[in-house]
């Protein structure tokens, strides 16, 4: 930052004034000298007012709410005071020309709401084609406050007579100001911005961290294990179910077999009845056959007898084969019917009668008529050959007999089997089987329930596994992003660490330089009045807070004690040396700390001092003034006549002071003497003091 010009209109004592400051193009020191009460302090106040309004001057001048020139107010109640400061400020975007204009209306200057006046800024970037930016009110004030914060105002635009307040006033703004000058504020802001950026990347990281992926994989592993276990369990249970169902089926079959016994019993009864019936039928059939044969034989015999006569009868009788009566009744019939087979009655005296009678009594052939097989077979042949219908009847009867017999035998076999089966089965067995079936059925029920539960659990688990898989896929996809985010965070962390290291190095350098510079420029002072030094007081955690100056002096006992104001001159010296050292270090900090990388080169700041030598004796005053020679930055210095004489050999050196103004007041022609700001002058102006180095005086505005 470099001051270009200051223009006052109706500001305090000044009707108007215009000052151009020495800057790089024409030197670096501007000296404004004048007698006391000529308005040097008002000029300092103008700087402070233009930057911070009422707040900037409330603690540095009397009547801070009387800004507008009183004479003007008497002429016009609505008169305004205007201060216009032109300065340049450099930034990354180039060099800016800033014109700050603060105006306050006399009617508002005491009003707490309006006493700061109105501020307008016109900002022109020399390197930009965008033209000029205009800011007003709060925006303009915000810009100025960021350019020259309150603490910086106290440090850079100060009155020498009150500079000791830096160390004794406890101004917390000083630490801030020092940080700003050293560029640490910018670095801290950079750290803050990096941390904010880091938090943004960390937000992204939280959703896709490797750790989360691993957790998900573990979770899926557990879920899969559980799912497999459940599935295996389910399979086992299903297999077991099949097994016990088969067992139940087998038992049921067994039971069914036992159930069949009931049928067997009824079969037994049925078969027995059948057998009995068949036996009866067989008997009947046998009898029928027997009857048939007998009847047929009789008929045949009769017919044969009828047809062949006595021949056959004779033959039969001779052979003794004459068929005897088949039954007792038949025989009786023969005996008592008085007729033979041949149609004649047997006479009781006949041989036939006797024979029959003997046969009968002998029972030789009584009921065994077919014992005479030959006879029977003969008959049968006869039947077959000559009486086919009879033969058929005979075969039918005979088959009937045989069938009955076969049925009986078959039924007997079936009965025997049934009886065996019945014997095998027992009621106890059935009960046991039923009990086993009941147990197995219960088991089946339980197993079925268990399977249902297992399926339910499995169904419940499956979506979890699926969800987990999807999340893993998503997380894996994000893994690259995670890696990149981690890389970015790592880069940010390392950058923050590096900036902290830069601040530490700067801080350390600052300490060394302060000690060094104080030793150089106050060596003489030390020799004369004893040793003094400045300590920095750490304010808090922040590394860059380490710069509140505390002037210490060494007492007779050799102890370093805080200077409590007994020797304000010493304090003043130390304070100015401190400021000068800070600015000096700041101007070289980047070069020394980072090798001139331009990482955090500080803005160059001017220093504006009102009566810096006010309370100093000659030695310290010369020492302080001489130290300005080594200062790279812009200096504006207001000195009174006494000091100007004292330091003239330094201040008149054209190689050192580029612009010099003599401040002299005029009494206006139309006003008398009156009390104003403790002085008796009413209207002041500034003009060149031609007596000395007149060629350097320029741009003086006289009203």
């Amino acid at each position, binding site marked *: 930052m470099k001051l270009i010009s200051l223009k006052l209109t109706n500001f305090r004592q000044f009707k108007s004034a215009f000052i151009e400051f020495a800057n790089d193009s024409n030197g670096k020191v501007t000296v404004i000298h004048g007698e006391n009460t000529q308005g040097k302090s008002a000029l300092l106040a103008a700087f402070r007012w233009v930057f911070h309004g009422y707040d900037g001057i409330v603690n540095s001048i009397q009547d801070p709410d009387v800004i507008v020139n009183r004479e003007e107010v008497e002429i016009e109640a609505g008169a305004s005071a205007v201060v216009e400061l032109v300065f340049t400020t450099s930034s990354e975007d180039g060099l800016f020309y800033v014109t700050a204009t603060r105006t306050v209306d006399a009617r508002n200057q005491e009003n707490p709401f309006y006493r700061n006046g109105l501020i307008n800024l016109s900002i022109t970037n020399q390197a930009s084609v965008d033209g000029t930016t205009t800011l007003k009110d709060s925006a303009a004030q915000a810009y100025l406050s960021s350019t020259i914060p309150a603490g910086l105002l106290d440090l850079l635009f100060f009155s020498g007579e009150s500079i000791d307040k830096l160390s004794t006033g406890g101004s917390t703004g000083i630490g801030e100001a020092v940080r700003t000058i050293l560029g640490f504020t910018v670095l801290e802001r950079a750290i803050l*911005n990096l941390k904010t950026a880091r938090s943004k990347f960390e937000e992204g990281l939280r959703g896709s961290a490797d750790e989360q992926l691993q957790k998900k994989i573990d979770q899926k592993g557990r879920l899969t294990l559980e799912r497999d276990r459940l599935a295996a369990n389910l399979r086992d249970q299903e297999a077991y179910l099949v097994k016990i169902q088969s067992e139940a089926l087998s038992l049921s079959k067994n039971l069914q077999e036992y159930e069949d016994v009931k049928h067997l019993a009824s079969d037994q009864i049925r078969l027995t009845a059948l057998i009995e019936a068949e036996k009866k039928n067989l008997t009947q059939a046998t009898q029928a056959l027997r009857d048939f044969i007998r009847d047929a034989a009789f008929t045949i015999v009769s017919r044969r007898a009828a047809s062949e006569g006595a021949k056959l009868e004779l033959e039969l009788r001779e052979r003794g084969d004459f068929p005897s009566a088949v039954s007792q009744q038949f025989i009786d019939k023969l005996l008592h019917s008085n007729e033979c087979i041949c149609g004649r009655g047997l006479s009781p005296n006949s041989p036939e009668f006797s024979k029959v009678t003997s046969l009968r009594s002998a029972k030789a052939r009584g009921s065994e008529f077919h014992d005479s097989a030959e006879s029977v077979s003969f008959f049968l042949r006869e039947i077959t050959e000559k009486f086919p219908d009879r033969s058929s009847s005979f075969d039918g009867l005979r088959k009937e007999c045989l069938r009955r017999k076969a049925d009986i035998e078959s039924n007997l076999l079936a009965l025997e089997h049934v009886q065996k089966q019945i014997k095998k089965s027992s009621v106890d067995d059935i009960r046991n089987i039923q009990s086993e079936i009941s147990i197995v059925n219960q088991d089946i029920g339980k197993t079925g329930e268990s399977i249902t539960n297992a399926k339910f659990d499995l169904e419940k688990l499956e979506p979890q596994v699926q969800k987990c898989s999807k999340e893993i896929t998503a997380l894996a996809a994000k893994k690259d992003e995670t890696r990149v985010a981690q890389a970015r965070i790592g880069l940010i962390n390392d950058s923050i660490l590096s900036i902290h290291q830069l601040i530490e190095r700067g801080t350390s350098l600052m300490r060394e330089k302060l000690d060094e510079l104080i030793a150089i420029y106050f060596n003489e002072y030390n020799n004369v009045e004893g040793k003094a030094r400045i300590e920095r007081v750490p304010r808090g955690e922040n590394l860059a807070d380490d710069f509140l100056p505390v002037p210490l002096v060494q007492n007779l006992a050799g102890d370093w004690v805080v200077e409590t104001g007994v020797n304000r001159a010493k304090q003043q010296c130390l304070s100015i040396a401190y400021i000068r050292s800070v600015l000096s270090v700041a101007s070289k900090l980047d070069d020394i700390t980072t090798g001139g990388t331009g990482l955090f080169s500080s803005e160059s700041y001017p220093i504006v001092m009102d009566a810096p030598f006010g309370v100093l004796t000659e030695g310290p005053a010369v020492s302080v003034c001489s130290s300005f020679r080594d200062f790279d930055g812009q200096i504006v210095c207001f000195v009174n006549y006494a000091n100007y004489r004292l330091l003239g050999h330094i201040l008149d050196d054209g190689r050192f002071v580029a612009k010099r103004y003599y401040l002299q007041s005029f009494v206006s022609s139309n006003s008398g003497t009156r009390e104003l700001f403790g002085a008796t002058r009413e209207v002041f102006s500034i003009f060149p003091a031609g007596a000395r180095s007149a060629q350097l005086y320029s741009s003086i505005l006289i009203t």
Partner: protein
Amino acid sequence: MENSESKDEAYGAKVHELIKFAVSSAKRDMHKIDTSQGQEMLQSHIRTLTPKNNETDQS
């Protein structure tokens, strides 16, 4: 070893680049009323320094 050193060097250059950008952004912030875009620019620059699919960024 050389690769590692070269990698370190490249990484150091990135750190330096980021600091430089962060500081210059902060300087702009200090003098601007509206700083809402500063963060965006910074994050964008960090993304430029650590592009995706660049395996060497893991150091």
